[in-house]
């Protein structure tokens, strides 16, 4: 397969943004406020995405009224906003000029969004008993997506998408280390069978090797210009899988061999996205992967939840991290996941911390080759202590969720990038 860069380098894009001409102002535009006035923050992203799908250009007003959107004023958009319950404010030419003056003067920026990114969610064909915050967020916001899993990744289909989401997958191939504690559970047996089936279909010796190959495909996808967003255990295990290419970190139940007792020393962190120098947790009975996660929810070392704070970036100098932290609240309640948070001592130099909670980070961003990645710890922002088998969160009750907003910021972020180059 020929892999060619599909997007311009980020730096080029930033230059492009700064040179974006002020659009010729129509008689009126529609402001989608994203501060506390907004009746449905999450569906506002869906409205913006839908507007992009219609071929319209949108502006994201970073740090202005919670990260408002400026849409063209058309009957179709008004109608769509009404159906989605999204608050809009018609703004005339004079008001738009005032807004632009404010943006020029303050720590704000107007970023044009020009294409609706094509979205893939990495998920097995049957996800029970899990649910996935990103799937729920996209579904609620009415943002279309397609699903991919190991076969599609291995067959090169990732390159059909601009945006890839990973959630609670265990890329170390150890079934989230639930193999012992949930032995006999139907869902676990199905998961094992499903993974073994793909392993034999693609002629891999075992599931950990399969998952490592998938991880390497994902890494290559990002390097060539893809955008990766990962949550929960996918963050930590993806890096562990990548860094363990020359050592065995998996429990014997996963690959039939005992792990390398010196695996931590043999890890090659140059292959990882975000983390370095972590101690791998090799004990099969301990439901943790390494010491990257600070909270260790399912272990004796479990730490209590607190609050995490979003960083404030310079909108004009750092529009990318600014986009990713747009919110109407800057202190958010923390939430557990198999990987909840990231020890700062395990972060690679150059990783941007977007949100932190004391000595650990919650939300990370970085670039790799032509692409970028974002890691967000935790499972469900509105269900802090989500248990296996719990019903999914009803987002109608959390339409203003600041934690879910962070997910949707990521969905729109690739919309701000230039169209792929035809090479």
């Amino acid at each position: 397969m020929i892999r060619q860069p599909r997007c311009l380098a980020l730096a080029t894009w930033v230059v492009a943004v700064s040179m974006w001409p002020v659009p010729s102002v129509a008689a009126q535009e529609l402001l989608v406020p994203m501060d506390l006035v907004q009746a449905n923050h999450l569906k506002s992203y869906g409205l913006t995405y839908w507007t992009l799908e219609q071929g319209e250009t949108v502006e994201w007003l970073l740090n202005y009224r919670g990260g408002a959107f400026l849409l063209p004023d058309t009957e179709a958009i008004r109608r769509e906003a009404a159906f989605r319950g999204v608050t809009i404010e018609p703004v005339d030419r004079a008001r738009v000029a005032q807004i632009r003056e404010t943006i020029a003067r303050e720590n704000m920026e107007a970023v044009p969004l020009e294409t609706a990114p094509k979205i893939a969610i990495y998920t097995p064909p049957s996800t029970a008993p899990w649910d996935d915050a990103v799937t729920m967020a996209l579904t609620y916001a009415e943002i279309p997506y397609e699903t991919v899993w190991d076969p599609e990744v291995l067959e090169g289909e990732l390159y059909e998408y601009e945006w890839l989401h990973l959630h609670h997958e265990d890329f170390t191939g150890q079934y989230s280390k639930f193999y012992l504690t949930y032995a006999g559970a139907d869902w676990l047996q199905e998961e094992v069978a499903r993974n073994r089936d793909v392993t034999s279909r693609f002629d891999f010796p075992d599931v950990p090797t399969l998952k490592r190959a998938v991880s390497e495909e994902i890494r290559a996808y990002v390097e060539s210009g893809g955008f990766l967003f990962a949550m929960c255990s996918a963050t930590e295990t993806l890096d562990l899988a990548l860094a363990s290419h020359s050592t065995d970190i998996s429990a014997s139940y996963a690959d039939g061999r005992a792990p390398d007792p010196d695996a931590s020393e043999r890890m090659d962190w140059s292959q990882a996205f975000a983390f370095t120098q972590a101690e791998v947790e090799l004990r099969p009975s301990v439901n943790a992967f390494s010491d990257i996660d600070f909270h260790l929810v399912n272990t004796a070392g479990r730490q209590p939840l607190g609050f995490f704070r979003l960083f404030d970036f310079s909108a004009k100098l750092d529009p990318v991290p600014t986009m990713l932290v747009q919110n109407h609240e800057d202190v958010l309640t923390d939430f557990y996941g198999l990987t909840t948070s990231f020890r700062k001592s395990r972060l690679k130099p150059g990783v941007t911390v977007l949100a932190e909670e004391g000595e650990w980070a919650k939300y990370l961003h970085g670039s790799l080759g032509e692409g970028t990645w974002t890691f967000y710890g935790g499972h469900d922002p509105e269900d802090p202590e989500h248990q296996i088998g719990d019903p999914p969160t009803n987002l109608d009750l959390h339409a203003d969720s600041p934690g879910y907003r962070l997910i949707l910021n990521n969905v729109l972020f690739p919309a701000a990038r230039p169209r792929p180059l035809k090479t």
Partner: protein
Amino acid sequence: MMGVRIRVAFLTILGTAAGFGHGFAQTGPPSGSDVSFPSIEEMAGWAEEGEAGVERVRSAVLARVTALPSERATIWVQLLSVIEAVDPSVAPVAIRAVGLGIDSQAAAGSELLLNALQAAPVSDRAALLSLAAQIADAGDSALAGEIRDRLLEEHPDAPEATEARLVQAGWYLADGDRPDDGLRLLEELIVGSPQHPLAPEARRLYQANGGRGGSGPGSGAG
């Protein structure tokens, strides 16, 4: 005023949750040992004295209505909303119509209001039609539907029309024989009054009944 109107809408939603309309008939007159109201004729007589009398009715109802369960309070709150909004000359007939409704004479009560429409100021007619529909709904849902149709046709922009759209849409959809009309009315409400307190309920009903291809939150993607 606005507080009362919103409360009317809220109570109507409570009513619609159990089946559209039917706010009060099964509860009987508000007399006996629980809550004692002045007689209907007494209150109508006060209202005939003009604004001061209407205010007296209002105070009497307000002092008692909070002690009623919501299904019985609905019609009284609706009456309060109407007599505050309309010309005082129209208030006595509204009170008597409500009295008939409470007395299980829903058709007679709504008929009384419909007969009074011609003489009422144009600006009061939507409120009277809304009250007539509310009264009729207790005994004759078809008549209530006809009255709401008339309200929507003759006064589509009146404040009462928004609530009437929701109730009428629910009636069409619950009945099952005019689902397209039900969805059309919901669409009018959602698009025409997206910030109205009833708009979220309209969206829910719209999606639950297949509007925009929906079958409830969670559909439409993937």
